[in-house]
């Protein structure tokens, strides 16, 4: 067994909240540059140039790229030979969020009961997904999820007979409806199978991938390529002003499902694809 003090968790979560909000990774900046080379819409190129300039300012001045610094989603994969000392894991993660949002001058965007809507003033609670994996390590992923894009996400409980066409149509329709609202060019996470909840969780987790990283499952990888082409034929373009770059990438994950079902979840993310990860 290995003992990890939860102070390490707090420190890591705090740092990752700030970094994810303020620094666009070089992989994502490469995606922006590549799109700038391909995009034929003048307005579209103008938007891409703004996105590139914005990332530069944010990095240089250590300020968030976007005022919506999100609701914090944390995936914690806990090794089965790990013991924690200190606080409970959930308290430690929330303490890390509290610390990061204060120190990083990030916007506190979380309200209490959704119908009462009092700001919790520290961006907690985080949405936490805990999984048990083998080993002595903890792998933490922090994703500040903005709601311009989250609001355009959707779930469909399709019929098995709807098949591949039904799945593709629903995903493309969801991207089309998101239009200019979700800050395109988008990154799109797709979850197919499982239950209603499982489909959306794997869709969200798909957004942890690096741009260009195709699914290891051949069916899903093929679907990703088809979806990319179809989505970029929609014409929505950067910021929705019209253009060829509507999505930067689409990541598909799948899970076995019930004989009677075909759940499809689409989790939409803006052009910033903010997340960080660490192995402790």
């Amino acid at each position: 067994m290995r003992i990890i003090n939860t102070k390490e968790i707090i420190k890591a979560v705090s740092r990752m909240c700030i970094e994810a909000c303020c620094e666009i990774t070089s992989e994502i900046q490469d995606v922006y540059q590549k799109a700038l080379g391909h995009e034929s819409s003048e307005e579209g190129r103008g938007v891409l140039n703004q996105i590139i300039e914005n990332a530069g300012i944010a990095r240089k001045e250590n300020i968030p790229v976007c005022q919506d610094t999100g609701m914090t989603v944390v995936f914690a994969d806990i090794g089965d030979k790990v013991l924690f000392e200190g606080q409970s894991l959930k308290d430690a993660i929330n303490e890390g969020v509290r610390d990061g949002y204060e120190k990083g001058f990030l916007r506190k965007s979380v309200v209490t009961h959704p119908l009462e809507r009092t700001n919790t003033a520290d961006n907690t609670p985080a949405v936490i997904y805990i999984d048990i994996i083998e080993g002595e390590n903890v792998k933490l992923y922090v994703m500040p999820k903005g709601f311009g894009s989250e609001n355009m996400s959707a779930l469909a409980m399709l019929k098995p007979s709807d098949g591949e066409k039904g799945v593709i149509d629903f995903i493309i329709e969801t991207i089309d409806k998101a239009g200019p609202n979700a800050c395109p060019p988008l990154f799109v996470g797709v979850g197919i199978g499982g239950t209603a909840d499982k489909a959306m969780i794997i869709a969200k987790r798909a957004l942890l991938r690096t741009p260009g990283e195709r699914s290891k499952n051949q069916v899903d990888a093929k679907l990703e390529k088809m979806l990319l082409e179809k989505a970029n034929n929609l014409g929505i373009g950067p910021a929705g002003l019209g253009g060829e770059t509507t999505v930067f990438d689409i990541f598909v994950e799948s899970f076995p499902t019930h004989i009677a079902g075909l759940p499809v979840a689409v989790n939409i993310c803006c052009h910033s694809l903010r997340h960080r990860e660490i192995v402790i």
Partner: protein
Amino acid sequence: MNIINLQFPCKRKILKSLKSGDQVKINGILYMARDAAHKKMTEEYNESGKYPFDIKNQGIYYAGPAPAAPGRIIGPAGPTTSMRMDSFTPGLLDNGLALMIGKGNRSESVIESIKKNGCVYLAATGGVAALISKSIKRQEIIAYEELGAEALRKIYIEDFPAIVIIDCDGNNLYESGKKEFRKTENNNA
């Protein structure tokens, strides 16, 4: 591309000359408000017959900034999704509001109200909040301070970058831009 310099507030005649697709740099004064402030403003008007500021011929930028780090005028302040303001908008336009800046689609009733009242809807680019905040030279909270990031602010701007989405004739860049680049058979997908 030709960029129009817009001093704001301005005469309606100038607003009416703006066309969907025009890129502008705005100088002058705007008010900053999002959902919670819109709700409060509308409630205040319904109770007292007055808004917390004279909205006639003014403009609202839909945004709620991140906190300002020490020594800064304002934190990152990009546009928020406009459709959340849709239910409040026709009332504001009927009472004199002239211009709105946000991001994303508007409802049919907002578009009708824009046409009827000779207003204009512009977009700033979503997610480039650090860049946009450079155009904000001064800010003051004028109401609803308790709302924090969502408080009603008056902002003084220089060369604020925006693009006309819906002009006073109802032409919509989100529709025309998409149509120009669409390569799919299904237009209502």
